[in-house]
């Protein structure tokens, strides 16, 4: 499967809660079929995970899922998706992650049976391949344990499988800090994309075998790392915005190898994925500030099908345990969306546009999430045939959009940001069209201590 046209070509059809290829879970919950549902994610409060502490781990997850389900019932949520993102330790010992999956599944099933609340469970093993340094992407015990974690979690009751994979990240962190556009393109458009093809063929195969949904990936470790660094003024905002768009072709590879959505919440490249593939996406914003601050808290609400809090640890707040607080916030956020869309597509579009307008002029990272910009750039991306060429084209398109917005006064960039916009534009111009030529040119600059290129077929 190679995408070459937009699944959602018209802005008026590019809305939250609806998509051309909605997904129906086993129990009938439809994602992207009209309503936006909350997707809640939670994690342990400070504790060490060992065989001895597993009873406490299970107890905490039981407490969290119970609190969340009770509150969702109380607030008459029309549906609820829970994401269980495995901690590294729970993936390193796949049986532990599977046991937690079972706990979550059984509480969700009980809630559905008792109160009729339709639920879904997304399980996201950790990409533990990084535990080897340099990471071994296709061999060794970490790879085996990771795939076993997918299988056991699927068998333990996951509805959907996902991952935040890290192929290429071993050199991308430095590329971010160096403001090194070609290296970022190499990490995402070459390394990451190749790894995604490898990974997602296997995840899709496991999913088919186990009867679960291969949902999607997230370039979180790339673009959200950049976003957080930009929030701390460590790197330019325009650079973080460009990196966001550079991740699109990489994340699209999952869908070209079997993923069918909903794409992961922290993947802010999601709107692009939705426009191109037509599959539903999760997204997160203001309610996810518990996990990370961001300049895109409202605009992220423009086109999601699931609305998430990213993740919150199990600490006590005055109102309730934090996961319960989070699910309440997500339910109210989705209530508003669903009321507007129940009135009609015009009303949903108005609400979408207000969210867009409220953020898009204040930060280039918000600007590249404008639905009209997403459609425009997405069209350019899929005009290219390969991940590298698409990523290269992403750089051109994102930079062009930002330059135009800046010139038109739609973005108010500082002197420093302006300087970086120029600098990145020059760097982009130097990207050769031919992938082999690009690779040959960049390889001498790659830190071989950090990466095993053979793991990427290089």
């Amino acid at each position: 499967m190679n995408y070459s046209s937009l699944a959602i070509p018209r802005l008026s059809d590019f809305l939250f809660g609806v998509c051309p290829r909605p997904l129906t879970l086993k129990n009938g919950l439809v994602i992207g079929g009209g309503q936006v549902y909350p997707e809640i994610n939670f994690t342990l409060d400070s504790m060490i995970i060992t065989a001895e502490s597993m009873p406490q781990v299970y107890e905490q997850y039981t407490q969290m899922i119970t609190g969340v389900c009770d509150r969702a019932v109380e607030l008459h949520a029309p549906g609820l998706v829970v994401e269980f993102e495995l901690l590294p330790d729970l993936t390193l010992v796949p049986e532990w992650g599977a046991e937690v999956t079972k706990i979550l599944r059984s509480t969700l099933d009980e809630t559905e049976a008792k109160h009729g609340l339709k639920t879904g469970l997304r399980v996201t093993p950790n990409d533990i391949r990084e535990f080897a340094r340099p990471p071994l992407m296709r061999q060794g015990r970490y790879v085996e344990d990771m795939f076993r974690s997918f299988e056991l979690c699927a068998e333990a009751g996951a509805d959907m499988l996902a991952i935040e994979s890290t192929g290429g990240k071993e050199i991308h962190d430095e590329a971010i800090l160096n403001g090194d556009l070609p290296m970022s393109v190499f990490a995402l458009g070459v390394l990451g994309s190749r790894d995604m093809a490898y990974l997602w063929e296997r995840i899709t195969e496991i999913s088919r075998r186990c009867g679960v949904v291969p949902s999607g990936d997230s370039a979180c470790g790339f673009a959200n790392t950049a976003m957080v660094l930009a929030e701390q003024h460590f790197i330019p905002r325009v650079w973080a915005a460009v990196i966001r768009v550079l991740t699109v072709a990489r994340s699209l590879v999952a869908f070209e190898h079997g993923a069918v959505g909903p794409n992961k919440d922290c993947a802010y490249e999601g709107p692009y994925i939705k426009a191109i593939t037509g599959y539903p996406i999760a997204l997160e914003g203001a309610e996810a500030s518990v996990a990370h601050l961001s300049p895109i808290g409202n605009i992220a609400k423009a086109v999601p099908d699931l609305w998430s809090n990213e993740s919150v640890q199990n600490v006590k707040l005055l109102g309730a345990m934090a996961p319960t607080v989070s699910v309440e916030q997500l339910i109210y956020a989705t209530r508003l969306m669903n009321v507007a869309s129940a009135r009609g597509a015009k009303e949903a579009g108005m609400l979408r546009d207000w969210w867009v307008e409220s953020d898009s002029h204040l930060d280039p990272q918000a600007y590249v999430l404008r639905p009209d910009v997403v459609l425009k750039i997405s069209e350019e991306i899929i005009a290219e045939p390969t991940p590298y060429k698409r990523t290269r084209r992403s750089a051109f398109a994102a930079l062009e959009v930002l330059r135009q917005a800046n010139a038109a006064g739609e973005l108010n960039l500082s002197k420093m940001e302006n300087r970086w916009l120029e600098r990145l534009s020059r760097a982009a111009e130097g990207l050769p069209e031919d992938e082999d030529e690009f690779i040959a040119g960049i390889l001498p600059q790659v830190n071989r201590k950090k990466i095993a290129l053979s793991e990427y077929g290089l």
Partner: protein
Amino acid sequence: MIIDDIKQAVIEGDATEVKKLVALALEQQVPAEEILKNGMISGMGEVGRLFEEGEYFVPEMLIAARAMQGGLGILRPVLVEQDVKSAGKVVLGTVKGDLHDIGKNLVGMMLEGAGFQIVDLGTDVSPEKFIEAIREHQPDIVGMSALLTTTMPNMDKTIKAFNEAGVRQSVKVMVGGAPVTKKYAGEIGADGFAPDANQATAEAKKLLVG
């Protein structure tokens, strides 16, 4: 003044120029310590100020740091000969079970810019590896980072292991990372805490004075 030129070249991140000027200064018998302190470290100080004020980002700082490293390559043999000390030696690592390293790397980079010598142990560093590094490198400070709520407790474990190994008294311990608070740092008996990479340098300096 050649010292001012070195400083300016560091600020501008011109490694070639820094190397050339440092060599020239040494020829002119400018004391190595003066080149280091008033030229290069002072230049990085200015870079830090520009960063604070939003005139520089990390990429610019890295370029300046690399220019300084270039000059240091020439200066270091002379410094060793003259027995000039660095601002301090810091062993850095992300604690066991945790693979996040960009924050730690930033801290290392900023400390280096401030004249500290860095030994980076990487990620997923066990208490034993930290202890080994203390014995081998005899640092002034050990900096630990954690990004997960479930690896943060390994900071506590590591400090306890330092105590048991009898090396706790020989170093100051600094901690940081997303779930870490000043309160937690106090509870586990760390000497210092920095809420972000930015504030780590000031904290490290404070620790070595205090």
